[in-house]
């Protein structure tokens, strides 16, 4: 019973974190979004399949912590034309599953559906997301996020917002 309660507490905390991350991305709150990451973070959107080796093959995004910082600073520069005007975004994170725990890390998977409205038109982005959340003194931090777009093997329009 206690274990079950702990699980549901964990699940609640995980959901709250993912919803917050989604909202910060949707609302272009880049600095707050960047603050979610750990120092050893990996932000990854593979191409041409979900299980490619990003050390050998091209990915749409394969950012370590310092490159996440560059991405955010570019968005904040005021000259990132592809996001000026910004895309209108709202996303749904659903089918959340806690896959396992290892030490302070919790592995989570979810489905994501992002609606983007930009000058180019309206685009729907659908993906399977995997997250590694790390428990810290200040609550969860994001150590790894993988966004496996269902159409990552096809030609994609510019995706310059935070997916």
């Amino acid at each position, binding site marked *: 019973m206690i274990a079950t309660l702990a699980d549901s507490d964990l699940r609640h905390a995980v959901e709250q974190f993912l919803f917050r991350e989604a909202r910060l991305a949707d609302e272009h709150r880049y600095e707050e979004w960047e603050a979610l990451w750990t120092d050893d973070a990996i932000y990854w959107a593979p191409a041409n399949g979900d299980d490619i080796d990003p050390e*050998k093959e*091209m990915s749409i995004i394969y950012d370590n912590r310092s490159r996440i910082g560059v991405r955010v600073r570019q968005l904040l520069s005021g000259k990132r034309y592809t996001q000026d005007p910004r895309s209108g975004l709202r996303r749904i994170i659903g089918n959340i599953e806690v896959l396992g725990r290892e030490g302070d890390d919790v592995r989570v998977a979810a489905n994501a559906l992002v609606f983007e409205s930009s000058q180019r038109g309206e685009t729907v982005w659908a993906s399977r997301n995997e997250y590694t959340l790390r428990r810290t003194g200040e609550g969860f931090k994001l150590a790894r996020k993988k966004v496996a777009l269902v159409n990552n093997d096809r030609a994609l329009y*510019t995706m310059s917002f935070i997916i």
Partner: protein
Amino acid sequence: MNMMPAAPVWGDMIRPDRVRGALYRDPAIFELELEHIWYKTWVYVGHESEIANPHDFVLKSIGLQPIIMSRGGDGQVHLLLNRCTHRGNQVCPKEKGNSPMHTCPFHAWNFGSDGKLLGYAFPEGYDGLDKSKHGLGRVPRVASYRGFVFGSFAADGPSLEEHLGGAAETIDRLCDNAPEGEIEITAGFLKHRVKANWKFILENETDGYHPAFVHSSIFSVADSAIGGLYGAKSTALTRDYGNGHTELDLRPEFRKRDQMLSWFGTTPDRLPDYVAKMNSAYGEEKARKIMIDGTPHVMIFPNLFIAEIQIFVIQPLGVNDSVQHVTALQFKGAPDLNRRMRQQTMGSVGPAGFLLADDSEMYERTQRGIQAHDTDWVFLGRGGHRERRDADGFIVSHATDEVPSRGIWKHYRSLMERA
């Protein structure tokens, strides 16, 4: 939509220093381009290293036509049309693989990796069908330069070497940067779609005027020396090789710096294995020159862009619909450099790239802009007063001048008028 006269008067649309917006907008012109450019001239299809082994294949395209680039059992490269000779079904639906045989799923006709018809189901239904007349269609001319495979739908015409002309040297220069003198394409392609005409992409690849503005966001936040290459004081050159091939020649800037690997934003001590291999392959003196000059930034008309550390292949889908296929270049014998080329490529290009997401934004905005007709001129006159000829007789000018666009349009006009 514009009403096109039966035969456009190209001289009314293309002048030496300006072209009409309709050229990027009019579906009828797009159809003419398919016929007179994509289905006539040499078009880049793929690299031999993508089909390294016998029976390897990969799906490619020329214009709108689907192509299987396949290596036969004897090692020969074939460009086969991905269309069954029975009733037209797509023979191969798989992006890439290895198979000695392609079986059409519709009625099970079988084709070899060389395109020959091997067999068909229920043969008694045919009164002696001549297999030799029903092999897969093929691109009539196939030629390869340093592993880069081109195809031409014209049964005769200039050879690939004649088509490449002076620009062939840029491909040599690229391959020289590999310790084993060969490049490889092994990292898979990012496919980036834009709602824009393919010629906006073609012209942008060697446009040295835009980086200071379009890419100022990344130059300002990343520790990058690229920005200076495209300033008003740059000594880099734009060059028109003829036949539509154009270059942004950054060597004058790199030679001024006189630092090995400065072209790649690094220093020899960061890539000791690569430098050692280059020294033993070429001798220290020549290796030093190669590593100062770096790789080219060259647009091979109409669709192969070699961008220092990556290649882009432009695919037209419609008058305002195009795809750029992009991947990191890999040098044979240089794993340490290759890794960094992949990392940099992933950061800068593709749908989320620090550079290309802004370039693609400009393609799409220009496509929307030229919906307004006004006089309909797109003005390409920058630097006309300061063009000159280099030692080889090619037109060169300042890095920010519109020599490349003028060269592209001159060739375009000649192809369309020849028609």
